[in-house]
């Protein structure tokens, strides 16, 4: 506890006795105001002070109190309040001062009467830079270089009509006359305007949706503010961005799965966004748009409805018996058979007979029929598309790769090896149907009762053709069925040398010899039906392509057999 003794060192006036009386009066008054501040007035009535002195110091002292107070006017003061005489002092031993509260400025009044808003000073006039008149027109700019030398092919130039004078003059208030210095007039050559042909207004009411969609794509795809992928559009700055870490995770996940993955799978499995969340569509678009900008890391191999993404070092879909480039070269003839203005996805289904070549490599040709069934590339430089072929009869879905044709190579569909070997034989008839999803197709074959025949096969290990007893339960096109009864000479034959099979005419010639039907004129003959089935063992031929070779051979080795209904002859030694 902190105690502070208050020291009083007050010099009272008067005789020693009067000083003692004054000290006692002061002491009792201090006791009265012991809790007051040092300069607060302590008030005690004169009567009560006198009564106190009478009790403590005697009547004599009480009678002398007024004299004592008169002697010590610096310490005590006498007031008349309500007909009572009051002694007044302070704990500091001084007569209390009269204090006046200054109410000229109060905090409350300041809030109640705010000052008016100070007026903002006027902004100084900013000087505008003026272009030197010699830079104002093209003529004056080119004057030092003699403009005629350049022979500029400028667009139409029109004179700008000068603005007309206002017709009605407004009566302006008369301004005081001030003498103004005459400005020196600056001669400026009349300005010339270059009329740019304005883009015609899009009359969207008179054009159909296809043309309007084309106009939108043509204009917006060149605009860097707009993000586009396939049929979808957004503002570029509203598309979420991915960090390098995100892109690496996406790439690693595709490589772990060892197959192309759709954007749906990537968004869910890698980015962890569920399809039910509102951001799912946005993130899926972000994946497609952002990955399409990463040409070195990712390849788009999807369609509009099924957007597959691949990386550069994924294992190839389909056969490894022959390189895709070599297959594309084999199908080169298809580039002439495709339509220049294809109507993709214009047919609902396509029927196709599997040839030996297609069966062995597990593929289908991208011919005119397939072109009408399958979708076009979604992106301009897209080389391939991964599709899903579902076979309801075997409850299996195959991931196949459609290789689009290039100027030098034909297109084809890889990845049907297992489906063919498990269910079909060469010559089988299949049907491919489209679905609402342009990346998903149904493949069916004709179911038939169990049949057995000795059919042609190529032994991988020995690389020889052999006939083996085969059971199958699918519908076949008899003209394409390679049975031993029909083609007995193919047994134990070796595949043609690559140099021979590179030339279609040589393959046709070799096939005539393999068929082994000798004619009377030192040559061979064969029906077109047999030839078509047999030439397709070594390399693909369409009916049209084979017939064009037989009909238009420059060496004259092949000729139509006048005796047969649809047969051709071949005389050896005339082809090289």
């Amino acid at each position, binding site marked *: 506890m902190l105690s502070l003794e208050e020291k009083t060192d007050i010099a009272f006036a008067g005789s020693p006795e009067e000083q003692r009386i004054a000290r006692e009066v002061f002491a009792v008054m201090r006791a009265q105001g012991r809790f007051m501040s040092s300069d607060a007035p302590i008030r005690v009535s004169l009567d009560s002070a006198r009564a106190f002195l009478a009790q403590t110091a005697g009547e004599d002292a009480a009678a002398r109190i007024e004299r004592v107070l008169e002697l010590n006017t610096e310490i005590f003061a006498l007031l008349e309040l309500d007909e009572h005489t009051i002694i007044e002092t302070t704990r500091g031993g001084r007569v209390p001062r009269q204090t006046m509260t200054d109410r000229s400025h109060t905090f409350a009044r300041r809030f109640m009467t705010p000052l008016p808003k100070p007026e903002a000073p006027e902004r100084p006039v900013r000087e505008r830079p003026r272009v030197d008149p010699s830079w104002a027109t093209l003529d004056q700019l080119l004057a030092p270089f003699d403009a005629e030398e350049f022979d500029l092919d400028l667009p139409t130039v029109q004179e700008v009509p000068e603005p007309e004078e206002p017709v009605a003059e407004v009566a302006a208030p008369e301004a005081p006359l001030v003498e103004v210095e005459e400005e020196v007039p600056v001669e400026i050559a009349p300005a010339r305007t270059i009329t740019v042909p*304005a*883009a*015609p*207004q*899009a*009359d*969207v*009411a008179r*054009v159909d*949706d296809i*043309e*309007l*969609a*084309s*106009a*939108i*794509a*043509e*204009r*917006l795809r060149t*605009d860097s*503010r*707009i993000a586009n992928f396939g*049929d*979808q*559009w*957004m*503002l570029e700055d*509203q598309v979420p961005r991915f960090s390098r870490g995100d892109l690496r995770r996406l790439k690693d996940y595709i490589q772990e799965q060892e197959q192309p993955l759709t954007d749906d799978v990537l968004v869910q499995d890698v980015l962890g966004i569920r399809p039910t969340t509102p951001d799912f*569509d*946005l993130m899926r*678009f972000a994946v497609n748009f952002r990955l399409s900008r990463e040409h070195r890391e990712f390849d788009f191999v999807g369609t509009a409805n099924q957007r597959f993404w691949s990386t550069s070092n994924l294992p190839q879909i389909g056969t490894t018996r022959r390189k895709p480039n070599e297959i594309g070269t084999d199908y080169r003839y298809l580039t002439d058979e495709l339509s220049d203005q294809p109507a993709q996805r214009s047919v609902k289904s396509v029927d196709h007979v599997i040839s030996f070549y297609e069966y062995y490599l597990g593929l289908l040709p991208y011919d005119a029929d397939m072109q009408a069934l399958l979708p076009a590339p979604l992106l301009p430089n897209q080389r391939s598309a991964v599709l899903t072929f579902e076979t309801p009869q075997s409850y299996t879905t195959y991931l196949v790769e459609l290789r689009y044709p290039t100027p030098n190579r034909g297109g084809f569909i890889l990845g049907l090896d297992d489906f063919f070997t498990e269910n079909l034989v060469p010559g089988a008839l299949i049907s491919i149907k489209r679905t609402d999803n342009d990346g998903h197709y149904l493949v069916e074959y004709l179911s038939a009762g169990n049949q057995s025949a000795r059919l042609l096969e190529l032994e991988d290990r020995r690389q020889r053709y052999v006939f083996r007893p085969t059971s199958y339960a699918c519908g076949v096109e008899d003209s394409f069925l390679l049975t031993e009864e029909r083609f007995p000479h193919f047994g134990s034959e070796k595949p043609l040398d690559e140099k021979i099979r590179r030339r279609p005419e040589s393959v046709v010639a070799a096939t005539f010899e393999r068929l082994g039907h000798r004619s009377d004129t030192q040559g061979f003959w064969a029906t077109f039906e047999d030839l078509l089935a047999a030439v397709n063992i070594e390399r693909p031929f369409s009916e049209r392509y084979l017939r064009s070779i037989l009909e238009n051979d420059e060496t004259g080795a092949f000729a139509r057999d006048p005796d047969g209904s649809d047969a051709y002859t071949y005389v050896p030694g005339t082809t090289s």
Partner: protein
Amino acid sequence: MPTQVQLSDDDVTFLLTFLRNATSPVTTQQLIDALRSRVR
């Protein structure tokens, strides 16, 4: 293939505004519908 109809700058500005107000990707058909509805 160049098309007969061309979008004007006003059309592009309108489509930009339309895209700016969209919270998810917009299809080409939706852009076409927006252009046509503006004419009406």
